[in-house]
């Protein structure tokens, strides 16, 4: 079959964003922002014991913030999705009142970049479990770097060893909470048929490792 009328309009490249990509990515991100916000509120309650014992352990909780980056990319599969989703999610958190002030935007941008670089390293062709885990870890790693070394980072005053421990914990948390959960969610979503207009519609039947 040939698309007679389709040929008469400029054909969009497979890498460019359609309106549906933008809106769904934004909603994942904004919903992520709400979850973030709840997560930040919860952060104080849940991380208080961790904080009291050994503050770098709070890094283990950080993965929740990075879900939009990985989930957005696994669903949309267009260059920039991780960066866009995470930045929008941070904007959403800012709108709701963030304990990190406007610096939450920079954290969001960097976390998104961490995940984006991993997907870019696989030329946006691989979206399997190991890549999702790596992307989560990438986001977590950048989150840890930002928190430990940026002037606005909350852990800027930690001793070097504690910083290293914190970064390790955020990377682990990113891999598991943001990476694995997003990957599982994407497969579940693909089975429901809601991803039928996205490149990820076949995610449920893709091989796990290759």
């Amino acid at each position: 079959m040939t698309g007679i009328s389709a040929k008469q309009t400029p054909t969009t490249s497979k890498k460019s964003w359609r309106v549906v990509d933008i809106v769904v990515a934004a909603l994942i991100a904004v919903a992520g922002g709400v979850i973030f916000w709840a997560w930040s509120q919860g952060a104080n309650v849940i991380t208080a014991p961790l904080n009291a014992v050994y503050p770098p352990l709070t890094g283990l909780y950080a993965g929740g913030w990075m879900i939009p980056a990985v989930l957005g990319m696994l669903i949309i599969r267009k260059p920039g999705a991780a960066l866009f989703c995470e930045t929008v999610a941070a904007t959403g958190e800012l709108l709701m009142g963030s304990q990190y002030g406007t610096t939450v935007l920079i954290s969001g941008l960097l976390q998104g970049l961490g995940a984006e670089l991993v997907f870019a390293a696989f030329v946006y062709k691989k979206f399997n479990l190991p890549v999702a885990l790596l992307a989560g870890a990438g986001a977590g790693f950048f989150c840890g770097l930002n928190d430990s070394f940026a002037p606005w980072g909350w852990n800027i005053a930690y001793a070097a060893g504690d910083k290293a421990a914190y970064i390790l914990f955020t990377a682990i948390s990113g891999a598991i909470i943001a990476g694995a959960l997003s990957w599982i969610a994407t497969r579940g979503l693909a089975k429901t048929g809601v991803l039928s207009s996205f490149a990820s519609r076949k995610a449920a039947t893709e091989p796990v490792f290759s």
Partner: protein
Amino acid sequence: MRAALTLRGESLLSRANPLTKFVAVFLITLVLALSIDWVSATVALGFELLLFPLAGLTPLLLWQRGWPLILAAALGGWSTAILAPDTGTILLDVGIWSISSGSLELGLGFMLRGLAIALPAVLLMSCTDPTDLADALAQKAKLPHRFVLGTLAAMRLVGLMAEEWQTIGMARRARGVGSRGTPLQRIRATLGQSFGLLVQAIRRASRLAVTMEARGFGGAQRTWARESTYSPLDIWVLVGGTLIAAAAVAAAIGAGTWNLVWAATG
């Protein structure tokens, strides 16, 4: 949920362009971020509290909306106090915990700085309507309008999703999924509920995208029914932001407490 933070009504600062407000707040934030000391943070905090009435916020409203931030700042101060390299007299030393006079001062400065960074963002958002922000970002900051407006439209669905979250919770209880139980059961229940919400969110967003495209959205050219403008008020906002930032730095240098983060952490 967002409604909890944005005030309706016309305060002075709500009439300024969101972009200039953002630049002013960001400037204060950056300056405060450079140093961990209680003087610069306290000065900035003082000025910020003075500005809140201009954004239509009262101290009571501020407490109701801001207490999680205050708690977070306190915790941040605590972790810094016990983890920063010790200088001066050791006040407490229990295993991996140690607090010295130096690290305590650092922790205190840290806490105040956290507040002084968090509160202007609350101020900014309580007097900024997302629609105006989007107008400014697309028309003045020249961000791609498809992305800005797509995000703005998606944001409108969030309030709806908060309602739907509650409905899904009830609907699942009616299927026998309890939200009460052991922490593990509760986490599983929450994940299931989140998945249900995600399905609805993607469905809705896909339909919304169709609606937008059917209204001609997605092309390169578009006009704006409402123009995002700058006014003399915006100059005052920028001047105000710069003055607060400068006052904070000047006070800290004058008091001899200016303490660049990299120097502070050695």
